[in-house]
């Protein structure tokens, strides 16, 4: 399945990555995600662990009301005192992907739309987490929540099914659906937001950060098409906004420089603001192979986890 891809430099010697376009043609998300994740895991010597841990943290004194099953009897035997064992995290964490399915995601200049790319990414991540027996869930949203699959260990198939049939429809808006969801995720877990973030950096960060309030671990993937980054159009044309339908005359040659600098500034601002609020931000270009993207992200995250 894996194809050599000439234009993507290999970060890992000997590793081979899969062209997203080819993946998009497969259609079966389960197959695709498995292929990506297996290859990815095979390529790594050490699997990174996602958020959840069963590590012992500390003892504390028993207080009335604590479950007596949690009393450390061995310690009582040695010290004749009641201590309760505390753990760093729940052993099985919740993992939910918040996928933007607004109309603007339905754009692709190279045979794969941003939404397709995001679906494969979501499937891969879900697959990866499911391997760890974590609970997986999915929320799709545009300017409101479209589909909601609550996190569950048994929901892997449901998530893939929902992903499979999801389609871009309405114009998107981050704030309202994410605020609604922030109240919904009561239990701590890992939340992944996948979107093209066509809003002001401030608005984006304001919309996304409430998801962290309950202690959720928040990861943000910014999906963009190469054409959106480089603005490589030649002829002067009328450009139509996919979401609003608004048209305006554009002379790409005259505007390219300013456009690219504006997009760059937008990305830099997002990166800056997200790092300020300790949210992991990753920009994904749909021309890059998915497993390469996953690898680069996860290896980066592992380094950060070690630091924490």
């Amino acid at each position: 399945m894996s194809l050599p891809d000439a234009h993507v430099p290999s970060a890992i010697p000997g590793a081979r990555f899969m062209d997203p376009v080819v993946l998009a043609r497969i259609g079966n998300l389960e197959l695709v995600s498995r292929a990506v994740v297996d290859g990815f895991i095979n390529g790594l010597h050490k699997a990174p662990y996602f958020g959840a841990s069963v590590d012992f943290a500390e003892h504390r004194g028993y207080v009335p009301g604590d479950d007596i099953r949690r009393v450390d009897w061995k310690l009582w035997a040695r010290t004749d005192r009641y201590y309760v064992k505390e753990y760093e995290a729940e052993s099985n964490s919740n993992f939910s992907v918040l996928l933007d399915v607004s109309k603007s995601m339905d754009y692709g200049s190279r045979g794969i739309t941003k939404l397709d790319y995001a679906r494969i990414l979501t499937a891969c991540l879900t697959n990866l987490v499911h391997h760890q027996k974590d609970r997986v869930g999915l929320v799709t949203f545009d300017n409101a929540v479209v589909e909601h699959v609550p996190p569950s260990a048994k929901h892997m198939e449901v998530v893939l099914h929902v992903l499979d049939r999801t389609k871009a429809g309405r114009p998107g808006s981050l704030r309202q659906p994410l605020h609604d969801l922030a109240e919904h995720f009561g239990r701590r877990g890992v939340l992944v937001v996948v979107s093209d973030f066509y809003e002001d950096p401030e608005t984006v960060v304001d919309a996304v950060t409430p998801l962290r309030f309950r202690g959720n671990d928040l990861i943000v993937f910014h999906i963009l098409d190469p054409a959106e980054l480089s603005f490589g159009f030649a002829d002067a044309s009328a450009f139509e906004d996919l979401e609003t339908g608004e048209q305006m005359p554009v002379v790409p040659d005259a505007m390219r420089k300013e456009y690219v600098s504006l997009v760059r500034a937008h990305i830099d601002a997002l990166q800056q603001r997200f790092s300020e609020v300790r949210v992991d931000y990753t920009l994904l270009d749909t021309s890059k192979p998915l497993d390469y993207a996953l690898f680069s992200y996860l290896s980066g995250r592992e380094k950060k986890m070690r630091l924490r």
Partner: protein
Amino acid sequence: MSFIAPLFFVALAALAIPVLIHLIQREKKQVVRFPSLMFVQRIPYKSVRRRRIHNWLLLMVRLAALTLIVMAFARPFLQRQNAAVAGGGAREVVVLLDRSYSMGYGDRWERARAAAYDAIGGLGTGERGSVVLFSSGAEIALRSTGAADRGQLGAAVAAAAPADGATRYAPALKVAGSLLAESPLPRREVILISDFQRGGWRGEEGARLPSGTTLTPTPIGGATDQPNVTVTAVSLARSTFESQERMAVTAGVVNRSSRSLTAGQLTLEIGGRPLQTERLDVEANGSTSVTFAPVTVTGNNMRGTVRAGADALAADNAFNFVVSPVRPIRVIVVDRGGSGSAALYLTRALSIGDSPRFEATVRQPDAVSDDDLRRASVVVLNDVAVSTGLGRRLARFVEAGGGLLVAIGPRASWPQEADVLPATVEAPVDRTRGDPARVGALEYGHAVFEPFRAPRSGDFAAARIYGYRAVTPGPMAQVLARFDGGAPALVERRAGNGRVLLWASTLDLAWSDLPLKPVFLPFVHQAMRHLAAYAEPAPWLTVGQVLDASFGTDAAQQAGRVVLTPSGRRLPVDDEGSEVMELTEQGFYEVRGGQSGDSVLAVVASNVDPAESDLTVMDPREIVAATAGGSGGGGAGEGGVPLTPEAQERAQRLWWYLLAAGIVLLGADTVISNRLSKT
């Protein structure tokens, strides 16, 4: 190259249209769907508009076509440079010196003469100068004299004095133009010395100077704050009091200065002697009227003058007029007589009226004497049979200038031998049964019916005509009115110096009720005035108008007449034709002649034009622009010779080629764009 209608270049703004079309055109072809225009919209609009133009060739063709068509509409023409304009050389100078009576205001005349001396003194060796004096007309005081004879030119200026005429620039400029056109010298200059009154310039008036002529205006203005009162007109209200004719004189006075006049004096002089003096108060820039007590009109040609003191401009302070007792029109009504006189309505109608009065004498046909005819101006034949003898005498009377009104009823007849009637009289037409005839189809342009021209000014159709005589108009006759059946009602013919009117019905109640209708009186009066060729003598004329020297005289008195001007000059009037002469002086002109050779035949009052006393100044550049326009507009060619219409047309024909080229380019544009649309 210049343009006749450069305003059309505004249309060049239309060049933006093809440019815009070329800029917009391509973008409508394809629509690129893009996730979000968020960043595109943030880029300033001007850079968005900076689009690429495709098809430069097509754009250039369109722009060129538009430019050529606009240029064609601007009417370019080629101007041949006059070499003499640019180069130096000797000058031909015409000094135009305004001598209208307004130049007598303050010290204007002295300054004007000083300016003229300066102009003459400025003549260099080999240069020539002319002096033209002008007011309402222009007079060449000295024609093209060399600079060596400056003394002569100066003497011509020194001899001049303000006249009584009003300012008119156009005749003076035309004279200057003709003087310059004759000159062989290369440089031509007109020096116009005037107070530049607004009233003297009524637009261009065809005054064009030869090409290359310099017009140098020398305004003699100065303060106009000194008192200046003008007597603009008088009105004479006549009345009859105890068989004496009187008239009340009302004078209109205008104060043209910014100072009000109080306790001034306005005097009425009759025959040169002051008769009445009234107090005169006029507001600044205001006007008033003063009425004098009635004066008895004692004799013919009574001279009157209204005088308003003295001020800075004296000429317009006096106003002259001439009055004579009204001379009645003598009318002989020829009637068959008897108890039921048919002439009742006619004589009653003629006994009414003051201006003019009618003196009607009723005579029976056989009682009309030669003396009657000599004294009468009009003869009315009121339904009478005319004998051959009377017919011949009446014919002679008409030939000599008399008027004849013939009313033909059942009894009327006219001898064949005397051929002065405008129509042949035929059988009577009886309209007593059925509807009576009505008079219609009036010739309102004719003097008899002119007063009835306006709406509701008399209705002839109200009169019922129960009988009339069918008449057949002769070859020299004019039908002035017709009955409703189309038959002529009133026919006129000129015979010799006189006129004959034929009324095809009666002027009493025998055949019609016209005498009972309101239109009867004015109709009869108007017919009498017309037949007697009566004209109200004008009490005054204005300087510049023409005096008819036969005025007030009979044909027999025309030999050996002279006109005595107010300044005392005697101007003989010959018999050949110079009977008209222009009034140039203010005062009383006398026409003398007669058997003794020196009896006063007529007196005419002459007044200055009151418009001239308005000293409002115009911009001399207006005259310069209008007259010198000839050199720029192609009106005059080289050497002052005007271009022929063909030559002018040739010089302006450029627009034709431009338009043709523009149309060819439009055709090319069609071909190119067709090809482009196929690819």
